[in-house]
C-alpha cells in the first residue's frame, strides 16, 4: 500500500518549501531515513528523509514547484504496509490503489516551446494570460494561433513580470495575511529601459518576514554610545597571536556577542518570545547573526552562545559565515535563534534602525567604531566610540528594561582591556 510523504516542517517559521531536486525516481527502492529530495525552504537547502522503507510509486510535486508544509509530495509503497496486507480484503486494496492511480498527476510547471515564445514575442502577447490545452495545461502553438486569430489580444499588452506559480502557491499563515500579495504587480507601470528582476524565493522570504515583523511587532528604538577604546587596544594586542594560534581573524563581533550574552543573562526578558496569551522566556541563549551575501541576507544562529568563550564564538562565526557564502547552511544553522546581533558597522553605518527577526523580541546592532572627541572628567579626549542601536518589540519589552540591558552591554564592552 502506498504511504503518503508530506512536505515536512523544516523550521519554525517555514510555511512552504520548493522541491529543488528529486534524488529518487518512480520505481526506486528507498530505505527509511534515506534522502528522497532536496527542498529549498526558508533560506536553506535541506534533504528530506524518507519516513518509510519501500518503493517510490508516484512523485506528485515536480522539481521547482513550491508547496505548503503538509502537502503530499510523493507516494512510497511501504514494505511494512505490505507485510500487513494479508488481512486486507483484496477488493479494498485495489480500490485504494486505484484512487492513487486514476488521476495521473502531470507537472504543471509552465514551459513554453520555441514556437510559442517566438509568436508571443512577435505579437507582444502576455502568455500568462493564456489558457493552455496541451498536456498538463501547456500552452501549445495552436492555442497562441487561436488567440491571435480571434483577436482577443489586439490591444498592445504591457508585459509585466509575473510569477503566477508564486501567487498561487504562497500560503499566508492565518495570523499574517500577506501584505505582499495585496498589491497587484500589474498596477506598477513599467516603461522602456526599466530593468525587471524576477523575485527569487529567498528574496520573497526576506520580504515576507520583514513585512510580517513590521506589521505585527510594534517597533520601538533606542540607542546608546559606548567607549570601546579599551576593547580596540585589547584586540590589537591579541590579534596577531590569535591569528597565529587559531588561524582566524579576530574581529570585534565575538566580544560584542559575549557582552550581549552576559547582559541577557542579567535581563532574560530580552531572550523571550511573544505568544499572544503569554510571554515565553527562552532558557537557551542562541544568538542570530546577520550575514549578507551579494543579493540576500541570512541570519544563521550561534547555539548556546552563553557557553562559549571568545575563541568559541569566533570559531562559530567563522564557520557560519563560510557556510553562508558557500550556500551550505542547514536547517539547524538558521533556526532557533533567540536574539539577533547585527554588525552594521562592518559596512560603515553609524546609526541604524533594525527590523526585529520574529519571533524574537529584540535586535541589537553594533555600528562602526569611530574616533571622537569626548569629555572625560571635564577634559576632552580622543576615544574610540561605537553606537549600539536596539529595536524592541514593545508588546514584550519596555524602555526601562531595555535601557538597563543596554547599560549592561555598555558596561561589559567598556570592561574589555581594563
Amino acid at each position, binding site marked *: 500500500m502506498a504511504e503518503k510523504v508530506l512536505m515536512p516542517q523544516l523550521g519554525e517559521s517555514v510555511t512552504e518549501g520548493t522541491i529543488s531536486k528529486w534524488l529518487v525516481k518512480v520505481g526506486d527502492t528507498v530505505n527509511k531515513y534515506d534522502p528522497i529530495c532536496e527542498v529549498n525552504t526558508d533560506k536553506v537547502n535541506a534533504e528530506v528523509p524518507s519516513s518509510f522503507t519501500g518503493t517510490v510509486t508516484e512523485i506528485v510535486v515536480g522539481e521547482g514547484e513550491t508547496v505548503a508544509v503538509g502537502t503530499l509530495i510523493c507516494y512510497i509503497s511501504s514494505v511494512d504496509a505490505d507485510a500487513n496486507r494479508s488481512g486486507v480484503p483484496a477488493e479494498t486494496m485495489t480500490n485504494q490503489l486505484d484512487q492513487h492511480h486514476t488521476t495521473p498527476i502531470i507537472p504543471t510547471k509552465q514551459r513554453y*516551446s520555441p514556437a510559442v515564445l517566438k509568436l508571443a514575442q512577435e505579437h507582444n502577447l502576455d502568455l500568462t494570460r493564456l489558457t493552455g490545452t496541451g*498536456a498538463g495545461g501547456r500552452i501549445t*502553438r495552436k492555442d497562441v494561433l487561436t488567440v491571435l486569430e480571434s483577436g482577443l489580444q489586439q490591444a498592445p499588452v504591457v508585459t509585466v513580470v509575473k510569477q503566477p506559480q508564486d501567487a498561487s502557491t504562497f500560503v499566508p499563515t492565518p495570523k499574517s495575511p500577506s501584505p505582499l500579495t495585496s498589491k497587484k504587480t500589474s498596477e506598477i507601470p513599467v516603461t522602456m529601459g526599466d530593468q525587471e528582476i524576477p523575485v527569487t524565493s529567498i528574496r520573497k522570504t526576506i520580504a515576507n518576514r520583514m513585512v510580517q515583523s513590521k506589521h505585527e511587532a510594534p517597533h520601538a528604538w533606542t540607542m546608546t554610545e559606548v567607549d570601546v577604546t579599551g576593547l580596540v587596544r585589547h584586540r590589537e594586542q591579541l590579534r596577531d597571536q590569535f591569528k597565529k594560534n587559531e588561524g582566524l581573524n579576530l574581529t570585534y563581533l565575538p566580544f560584542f556577542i559575549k557582552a550581549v550574552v552576559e547582559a541577557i543573562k542579567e535581563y532574560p526578558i530580552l531572550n523571550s518570545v511573544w505568544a499572544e496569551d503569554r510571554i515565553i522566556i527562552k532558557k537557551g541563549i542562541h544568538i542570530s547573526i546577520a550575514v549578507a551575501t551579494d543579493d540576500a541576507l541570512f541570519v544563521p544562529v550561534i547555539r548556546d552562545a552563553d557557553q562559549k568563550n571568545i575563541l568559541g564564538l569566533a570559531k562559530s562565526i567563522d564557520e557560519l559565515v563560510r557556510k553562508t557564502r558557500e550556500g551550505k547552511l542547514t536547517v539547524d544553522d538558521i533556526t532557533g535563534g533567540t536574539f539577533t546581533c547585527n554588525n552594521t558597522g562592518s559596512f560603515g553605518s553609524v546609526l541604524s534602525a533594525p527590523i526585529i527577526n520574529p519571533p524574537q523580541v529584540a535586535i541589537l546592532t553594533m555600528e562602526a567604531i569611530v574616533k571622537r572627541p569626548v569629555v572625560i572628567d571635564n577634559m576632552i579626549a580622543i576615544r574610540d566610540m561605537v553606537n549600539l542601536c536596539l529595536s524592541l518589540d514593545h508588546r514584550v519589552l519596555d524602555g526601562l528594561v531595555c535601557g538597563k540591558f543596554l547599560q549592561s552591554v555598555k558596561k561589559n564592552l567598556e570592561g574589555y582591556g581594563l
Partner: protein
Amino acid sequence: MAIISYIDAVTAAIQEEMKLDPKVFVLGEDVGVRGGVFRATQGLYEQFGEQRVIDTPLAESAIVGVAIGAAAYGMRPIAEIQFADFIMPAVNQIVSEAAKIRYRSNGDWNCPLVIRAPYGGGIHGALYHSQSVEAMFCNTPGLKVVAPSTPYDVKGLLKAAIRDPDPVLFFEHKRCYRLIKGEVPEADYVLPIGKADVKRNGEDITVISYGLTLHFALQAAEKLQTDGYSAHVLDLRTLYPLDKEAIIEAAKKTGKVLIIHEDNKEGGIAGEVAAVIAEECLFDLDAPIKRLCGPDVPAMPYSPPLEKFFMLNPDKVYQAMKELAEF
C-alpha cells in the same frame, strides 16, 4: 486509370523503359526464366529475350560489378539484389566504385546504374530476408537512395532512376509489393528524384516517413481524425539526398514532428531528418522532435511474436501520433 499493385508498378516501369531504350537491360538472380522470386521481372524474359534479361550466378559483387562495367560502356543496367540483406558483398562496388566514378574521373565518366533491392520485414523472413539497410548508404555522396511507398511513385521514380545518369539505389518494401495498390497512369511519366511528397494535409502534427510505415501513418491519421487532430503526412520518397526544403516546410506547418521508419532507431534516417529540422527551424517547433522506429536489436526475429514486437503497426503509430498531438 488502372489500379495496380506496387510490384506491378515495378514491372511496368522496367518494361516501358526497356521498350523505350535498347540500352536498358536487367540482370540478377532468377530474374529471367523464373521472373524473379517476387515476380518483379515476370514476362520480361519472354518479351526481351536472354540478351536483355540476364540470370546471374549467386554473387552480388559480380552482379553490381558487371553492371558498373556495362554502365561505363554506355549501357543502362538494372541490377536486382534478390533481398536487400544480400547487398553486403556488393557494398565495395556500390560505395567505392559506382558512387565515386564521376568524381574520380573529374566528370569524364558516369555510372547510369540502378540497383533494385526489396527490403523490410513483416513477411516472416527473419534475419536474412527482412533487413532495412537504407541508412548504410545514406552517408555516401554520389549515390541516390530512393524508397517509394505507392505504386504511382514506384513507376515514376523507377523510370526516373533508369534515366538518371548516376547510380541510384532503389529500395522496394517487399511487404508493400502485393499489399499496396493504387492508381497508376499507363502513360509515360517520371517523378523527380530528391523530392518528397505530401501524402496528407493536416494542422496538428507532422509525420515524416517512407515505405511501409508511411501507410501505417496514413491509417493512424484517419483514426486520429476522430480524436479531433489532423495529421500532415510527408513521404520522403528519396532518402538521399533528403528534400530538406520539404522537410522544413512540413515541420514548420505544425511545429510538432514525428519521424517514423521500420529501420533501427539509432543512426537511422530519422536522426538526419531531425537534425535538419533542429538546425533550420528550431523556433517553429512546438514540441520535442519525436522518432518512432524499429528497436536497436541486431536483426528481425524469426519467432512470430517477436517479429510482431519488432515491426511497427498502425496501432503503435497511432499511439505515438496521439501522444504528440496531445502534447
